[in-house]
């Protein structure tokens, strides 16, 4: 049974379609990255998982349970680090952790959780005095209570320093090894790339692509990016490059020619430039980064 499954999930606010017919399946036990710019519809999907927002059309199920009908049952199996939350200013970190434990009906050792997420020294201070990063650690701690089967982390690294982000990744891996499914949303590619097995890309409310990171990278148009330093990087030579069979596109970047093309066309490009009388000073190749791929998928409305 999948951990998360949506069918034709849509959400409209007046004329604005925030989520448009999304079919998404997250298998049990995987770390799934949910990638997209701010406003792409990621949080709206998560809000429908949590029953904060109700679908205009379609359904969303967690472990086979409808998120509207069985909202409490669904959240009993989840640990959630939501977006746009605020902590209770007047309660201490410890009181927050205890409240989460009581809510989930489990006994906890607050200090060991505080230790794990790195707020040990602040646990008896009022959470209203916490920095954003500390609040984020506290709420992660609340999410981990009760060993949930599914962790929903909405932009979990926002507000965290690099050390905090690293700790977050370690915890994600630990939880995954314990058997938890992790659903991780972010607009930062490196974060997703570092932890996730599979990625779904959201853009303007649509789910543009779902695949493993490796597969997505392979399918990225053009494949290799070639950078060529020449003595005279003028626009006229771009036509020469683009005339080469197999070249995807060419442009000028930092006084060099940038070319995307399949690997086996590289030499043809260099030969063509040489034939046109251009002096090639240096060249380098670059595998497509997820960023390029992301731009590729979100630029013209996807595949």
């Amino acid at each position: 049974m999948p951990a998360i499954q949506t069918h034709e999930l849509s959400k409209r606010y007046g004329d604005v379609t925030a989520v448009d017919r999304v079919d998404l399946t997250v298998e049990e036990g995987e770390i799934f990255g949910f990638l997209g710019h701010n406003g792409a519809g990621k949080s709206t999907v998560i809000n429908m998982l949590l029953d904060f927002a109700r679908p205009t059309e379609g359904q969303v199920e967690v472990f086979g349970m409808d998120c509207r009908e069985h909202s409490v049952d669904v959240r009993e199996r989840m640990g959630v680090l939501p977006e746009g939350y605020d902590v209770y200013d007047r309660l201490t970190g410890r009181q927050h952790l205890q409240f989460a434990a009581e809510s989930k009906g489990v006994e906890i050792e607050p200090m060991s959780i505080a230790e794990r997420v790195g707020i040990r020294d602040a646990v008896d201070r009022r959470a209203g005095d916490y920095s954003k990063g500390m609040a984020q650690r506290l709420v992660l701690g609340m999410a981990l209570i009760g060993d949930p089967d599914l962790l929903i982390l909405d932009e979990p690294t926002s507000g965290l320093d690099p050390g905090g982000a690293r700790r977050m990744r370690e915890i994600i891996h630990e939880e995954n090894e314990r058997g938890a499914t992790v659903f991780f949303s972010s607009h930062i590619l490196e974060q997703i790339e570092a932890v996730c097995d599979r990625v779904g890309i959201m853009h303007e409310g649509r789910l543009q692509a779902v695949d493993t990171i490796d597969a997505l990278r392979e399918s990225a148009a053009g494949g290799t990016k070639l950078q060529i330093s020449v003595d005279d990087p003028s626009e006229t030579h771009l036509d020469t490059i683009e005339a080469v069979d197999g070249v995807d596109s060419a442009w000028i970047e930092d006084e060099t020619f940038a070319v995307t093309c399949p690997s086996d066309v590289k030499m043809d490009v260099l030969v063509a430039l040489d034939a046109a009388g251009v002096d090639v000073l240096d060249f380098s190749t670059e595998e497509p980064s997820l960023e390029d791929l992301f731009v590729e998928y979100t630029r013209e409305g996807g595949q």
Partner: protein
Amino acid sequence: MSWTVVARKELRDVWGSRRTRWLLGAVAFAFIAGGYAIVLSGFPEPSSADYASYMVGVVALLVPLVGLLLGHRTIVGERASGEMTLLLSLPYDRLDVVVGKFLARAIALGTAVAVGILGGAALVNYPFGSFEAGTVAAYTLGTVLYGAAFVGVGLAVSTATTSTAVASSAAFGVFFLFVVVWSQLRGVFVAALGYLGLADGRLPTWALFLYGAEPGMLYRRLVDGFFAGVEQGPYLGPEAPWFLGEWVAAALLVVWALGPATLGYLRFRSTDL
């Protein structure tokens, strides 16, 4: 029973607010001060029932004010700040949230009222007055109910909007209508119904029922009927029908305590966070 967890957290949170502690302290203090002042104001040997009717004017002003202040930000405040997002990330039904928060706030106000009345009634007793436990208990119950009604109205306001500013204005509007101007509206109703040909100089009983269903009117009638022994006027006089009496007033106060909060829940249940 997960609402009990919400209620306990909410009580801790309410008590953590200095402003709320002051408000609740003011309520308790008013009752105690009243117990002291009654001896000086024409009741040489006051009873607990005298105390109840002596306090009516202050209570009818203070309890609605504090009730609305406690209730009107319950949902909307947490929603605007994002605390509700954190709360509902935990496995709670929205009913748990509304019930827990409502009870916590009604209990907070109720405790202040009960402590104040107990202290005030003790002062009334000493040295020349008397203390009737049954009367004090009934008076406390009625007053707590009156407070809960305004916490409930505040909560209903709180669920109807996503803006704390709108909620504050609406709560002020309720206070102004019910507490400040309602008692002045009787003449307006008589004139309006007279114009429609439904009344002739005085309100028919059904109109008296509706006019008298405002919580403050109900509370006064409750105190007049049960404690002051008033047996005259359009509501409590010998001619008045049963449904204008103090028992029905008590029942309607229960409706006020539960009805608006229920409507608020239904509204909250059906909206996106």
